[in-house]
């Protein structure tokens, strides 16, 4: 039997070297392209570049959601008879359970706020223009997924507010012509909101939605890496006039450290809110008790909720609510397709109209949300 020879014969009397994990890895995997990427990746600097941090901060909050969600999962029980009790147990018996749940609740809200801010900054800087149409579309899909996370997670504590929010939300889906009936039954797991709905929403919240979010998020991040940061139109024009390349900083470590400061601020705000204003549990849902006065959905659904209040019962031959729901559906679709609706040069008349429409959307959302809060108890 011949002696097996190793691919690399040890050198004669090797000098004792300090062990380096990176060197160990490099002997096995070619890290050169990755190192090259990190060395050369740059982020433009200009008067609007602070908007670049919002996406990363949203990602950070999503990571917090995953981690606190996993911790809650250790104690939560998704059934009609024990969901509320298990959350109460988390909040009263589990060490730091109240804090973890409070962080999860607050973080969901901050995440939505940052995601909206990120979306509107992208919109007003027109970063969706060619070649970044798919980044916009994948971002909008992520926003839709986040709303679905919010809606499904809201039911899980099985309290009065979440019960009726789910009743209304699923009924809205049910009012959509043709497919509504199927969607309603699919979401509820039956005719009404019951324990079957709760179990189902739990499945959506912890399995189906994460499974869908993973690939879309990876696509979104990959596109951003692939194409780099978008330059705002005004900055791009100025550079073209001057004929100079954009000023930039290195991604690693300069941008990353600044981004980490953004994460740090987000964490501070989150920790402050979660510790000082613990997320409430409310009263256990009772399907045979009247809805409590002043009932409202989460704030990020409020502008739609408030609009539905103003639409009359009948518009022509159609139910007002159906028209309202179709209107919001259409608006969402138009918003999703913005890069294709506004593909032209950014200073064209049409493009300015799109910008104005965006301003109108922001004003509408803000006004309706404020009105919903101010007139909460008003009839």
């Amino acid at each position, binding site marked *: 039997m011949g002696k097996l020879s190793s691919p690399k014969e040890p050198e004669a009397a090797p000098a004792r070297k300090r062990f380096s994990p990176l060197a160990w890895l490099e002997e096995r995997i070619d890290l050169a392209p990755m190192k090259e990427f990190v060395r050369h990746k740059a982020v433009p600097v200009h008067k609007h570049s602070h908007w670049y941090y919002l996406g990363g901060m949203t990602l950070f909050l999503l990571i917090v959601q995953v981690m606190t969600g996993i911790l809650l999962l250790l104690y939560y029980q998704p059934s009609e008879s024990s969901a509320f009790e298990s959350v109460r147990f988390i909040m009263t018996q589990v060490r730091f359970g109240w804090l973890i749940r409070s962080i999860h609740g607050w973080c969901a809200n901050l995440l939505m706020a940052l995601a909206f801010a990120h979306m509107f900054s992208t919109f007003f800087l027109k970063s969706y223009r060619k070649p970044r149409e798919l980044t916009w579309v994948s971002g909008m899909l992520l926003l839709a997924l986040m709303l679905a996370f919010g809606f499904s997670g809201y039911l899980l504590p099985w309290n009065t507010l979440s019960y009726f929010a789910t009743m209304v939300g699923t009924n809205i889906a049910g009012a959509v012509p043709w497919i509504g009936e199927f969607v309603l039954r699919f979401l509820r797991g039956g005719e009404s909101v019951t324990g079957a709905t709760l179990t189902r929403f739990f499945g959506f919240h912890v399995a189906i939605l994460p499974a869908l979010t993973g690939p879309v998020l990876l696509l979104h991040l990959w596109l951003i890496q692939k194409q780099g940061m978008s330059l705002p139109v005004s900055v791009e024009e100025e550079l073209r006039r001057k004929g100079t390349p954009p000023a930039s900083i290195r991604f690693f470590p300069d941008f990353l450290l600044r981004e980490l400061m953004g994460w740090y601020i987000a964490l501070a705000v989150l920790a402050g809110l979660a510790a000082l204003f613990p997320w409430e549990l409310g009263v256990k849902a009772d399907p*045979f008790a009247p*809805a409590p006065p002043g009932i409202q959905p989460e704030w990020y659904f409020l502008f739609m909720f408030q609009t539905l209040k103003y639409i009359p019962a009948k518009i022509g031959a159609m139910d007002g609510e159906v028209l309202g729901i179709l209107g919001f559906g259409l608006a969402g679709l138009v918003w999703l397709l913005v890069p294709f609706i506004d593909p032209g040069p950014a200073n064209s008349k049409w493009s300015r109209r799109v910008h104005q429409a965006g301003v109108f959307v922001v004003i509408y959302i803000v006004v309706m949300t404020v009105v919903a809060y101010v007139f909460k108890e008003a009839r």
Partner: protein
Amino acid sequence: MESKEVGAETELAPNSGTVFQFGTEPALLIRTAEGELRAFSAICTHLGCTVNYDAESKVIWCPCHNGMFDLHGRNVGGPPPRPLPEYRVNLRNGKIVVTKGA
């Protein structure tokens, strides 16, 4: 046809209402200020919240979207598109019995 005994006649004061389980759904029994008993489905015809009797304004009220029904279940304010289905109320040996269907 489905019936349910909701309680003793003396239990419900004039100008008040109570929500009770009727089969798999919530239902509303009211006694008007004049003393008449009426029962309706408590599911708002707008988006399905459970309505309640509002003694102050003497209407059936849905807090979710401010829907209002009069004391015959007719949609009279806010977004509800249809009236509330009404059920029959009978008194049997001093007990209130609510019946739906046929």
